């Protein structure tokens, strides 16, 4: 047994939506220390969500220092720092003062809805899908930049004059780590750049035409780099004293980092992260696949000057949040974990199906006119059947995305690697394996996002040599194998699809 941790280590910063964390990993990919700090969610209006980027940078410095102390690590023990971040959250800062010129606009913020509709014009939301792999939706960064420049007085002039820098949170953290106003490097990685609606997926460069249409001056944009290379070294500030000279060597958007941490390095390997919502990504290799089924095309990762690896992405808006809804709004359970107890008290769903289209249907339907439905109710149905239907909804939605991925890529899913809070739900994981008709596998390190950033940074500095070394670190903590009669699976899937149909067209306008 080797329980004592000695260096060298890799530190990973996870700048997330609700908190910033730093995790220190050893060579086996085991966690040595964690530090975490939450930041304020600023909600100026309904649908608007902002973060104070200055607060976030202070927190990042604190958690890095905190994790160093907890790990008992010195400067020489840390070989590199990697970064993963909430995707699409957009900010602008003054390159001379280093101060943000406005709060960051968070990915969930819907203020650019109208702007996206305008930009779509006659073509609609798929106007730039061919070039960028994305639909014109409020999540993505480009229109958020345009909104800031058009709505905050003085910003457009400053931007044109070359005084402003744009970044997603990776750029902001890297710029500050590498010296800020004193020579900080202004870069982003391919995965984060692929969420701006401004990058050509084909050649990984900024699309000048789209930028011009959107009204984003090119001089605010960072340089696009790979996900795994040394961007610069820690310089200046409090972290300069602690970690001066340590290479800053990776950046990946959080979902891509999880794909990397789950070691999905071969074509057809996929991971699904079950949190409030669910994000599933499948590695499609060097091939860029344009989805016919409403999935997003995105960059999975790029290691140094190797070819980029692309991915298909499907997201489910409501998964864990449906369990929370059962707890908080319906009061049917006291804790999220109790959903399993309630659901396990019956043999099946009793004929009930729950489609949680609370804010419309996402991939593969993209129907904003849909609203939630519980279908198949009879007097026989109890709250336990509903609890079962709640869990089954997450599994069926995963199945729909998996089917779309198979259709687009032509690759059958051999196994699904899962992470996130809902993986502690045994009933759900078994049902997932049953309806996918594929094994569902949970890795031993739950922190796959941070691990992915650490892996990419470690590869860049030679701490690990190849992705094969990283695969060797991957450990299976549990595996659920399919055990469902194919006839039952087909019948249930058909019923689910019938229920989905009944959600559509609820809103009329």
């Amino acid at each position, binding site marked *: *047994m080797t*329980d004592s941790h000695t260096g060298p280590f890799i530190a990973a910063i996870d700048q997330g939506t609700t908190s910033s964390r730093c995790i220190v990993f050893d060579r086996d990919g085991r966690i040595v220390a964690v530090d975490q700090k939450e930041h304020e969610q600023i909600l100026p209006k309904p649908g608007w969500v902002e973060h104070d980027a200055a607060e976030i940078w202070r927190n990042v410095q604190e958690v890095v220092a905190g994790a160093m102390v907890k790990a008992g690590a010195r400067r020489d023990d840390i070989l590199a720092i990697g970064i993963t971040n909430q995707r699409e959250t957009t900010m602008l800062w003054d390159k001379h003062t280093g101060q943000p010129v406005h709060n960051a606009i968070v990915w969930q913020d819907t203020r650019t809805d109208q702007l996206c509709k305008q930009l779509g014009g006659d073509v609609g939301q798929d106007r730039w899908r061919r070039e960028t792999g994305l639909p014109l939706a409020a999540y993505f960064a480009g229109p958020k930049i345009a909104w800031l420049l058009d709505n905050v007085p003085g910003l457009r002039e400053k931007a044109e004059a070359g005084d402003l820098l744009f970044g997603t949170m990776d750029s902001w953290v890297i710029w500050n780590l590498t010296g800020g106003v004193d020579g900080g490097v202004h870069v982003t990685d391919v995965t984060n750049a692929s969420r701006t609606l401004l990058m050509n997926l084909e050649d990984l460069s900024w699309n000048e035409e789209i930028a011009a249409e959107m009204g984003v001056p090119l001089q605010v944009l960072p340089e696009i780099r790979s996900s795994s290379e040394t961007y610069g070294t820690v310089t200046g500030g409090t972290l300069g004293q602690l970690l001066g000279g340590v290479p800053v060597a990776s950046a990946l958007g959080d979902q891509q980092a999880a794909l990397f941490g789950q070691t999905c390095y071969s074509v057809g390997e996929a991971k699904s992260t079950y949190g409030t919502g669910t994000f599933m990504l499948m590695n499609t290799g060097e091939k860029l696949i344009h989805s016919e089924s409403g999935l997003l095309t995105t960059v999975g990762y790029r290691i140094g000057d190797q070819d980029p690896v692309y991915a298909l992405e499907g997201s489910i808006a409501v998964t864990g949040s449906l369990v929370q809804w059962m707890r908080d709004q319906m009061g049917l359970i006291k804790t999220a*974990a109790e959903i399993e*107890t309630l659901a396990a008290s019956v043999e099946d769903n009793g004929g009930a199906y729950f489609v949680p289209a609370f804010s419309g249907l996402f991939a593969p339907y993209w129907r904003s006119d849909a609203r939630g439905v519980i279908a198949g109710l009879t007097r026989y149905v109890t709250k336990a059947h509903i609890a079962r239907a709640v869990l089954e909804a997450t599994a069926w939605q995963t199945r729909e995305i998996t089917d779309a991925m198979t259709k687009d890529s032509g690759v059958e899913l051999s196994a699904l690697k899962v992470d996130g*809070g809902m993986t502690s739900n045994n009933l759900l994981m078994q049902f997932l394996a049953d309806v996918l008709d594929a094994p569902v596998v949970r890795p*031993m390190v*739950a922190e796959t996002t941070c691990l992915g950033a650490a892996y990419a940074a470690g590869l860049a500095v030679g701490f690990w040599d190849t992705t094969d070394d990283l695969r060797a670190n991957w*450990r*299976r*903590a549990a595996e659920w194998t399919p055990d469902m009669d194919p006839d039952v699976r087909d019948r249930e899937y058909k019923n689910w699809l019938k229920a989905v149909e009944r959600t559509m067209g609820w809103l009329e306008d």
Partner: protein
Amino acid sequence: MAKHIQSLERAAAMLRLLAGGERRLGLSDIASALGLAKATAHGILRTLQHEGFVEQDPDSGRYQLGAELLRLGTTYLDVHELRARALVWTDDLARSGGEAVYLGVVHQHGVLIVHHVFRPDDSRQVLEVGAMQPMHSTALGKVLTALDPVAHAELVDAKREPFTAATVTELPDIEKVLEATRAQGYATDLEETWEGVASVAAPILDRHRLPVGAVGITGAVERVCRDGELRPELVAAVRDTARSVSRDLGAKPF
């Protein structure tokens, strides 16, 4: 009719009073409703408050039912909650110990496996969540029987099957093992359930320091034992894990 304890009767009446109708009552309301002197009522309320059965609103000074009373009705810990809390710690135990980890609770004369983490090698393994293990011979079972009176009562009545030559089946001998388990804070199983397999387990306690489950490592004797004993570093790792989960459940530090 047997004589009842007056102060307990009064306390019960107070709880009923607070449970019905108006939720918050002042001292004089309570005293007059029950026909008690204020000082007497206050003394009983203070005791109830100390036990957490009654709470006093700091602003109005009025009394209401306490959180402890609500907890009394639902003391049992949901096993899925237990699994969710234990997940990180048990992953780490499997990783550091290099062996499979099991989490068990008392269920119908046996140990119900509610969580299982694979041994961290590439071998083929089957998830054993939902399986039952015997109470008298496994490390998980011994820990639970040593600390949980209900489990102990069941063990006494149960048929104690001799699985191997090493299985202890006679009640007096088992009591000695349980006593040792209580004293050392963990239990072992040296080929007492399965030939060639040994395990070590420690109790998970809740905020009242009541046992809610047990966590342990199971593996081949050649790997987990040295000189016929469980390797001390594995014992320490299992106990650390049990303590960490207990702490997450609100148990005070040991």
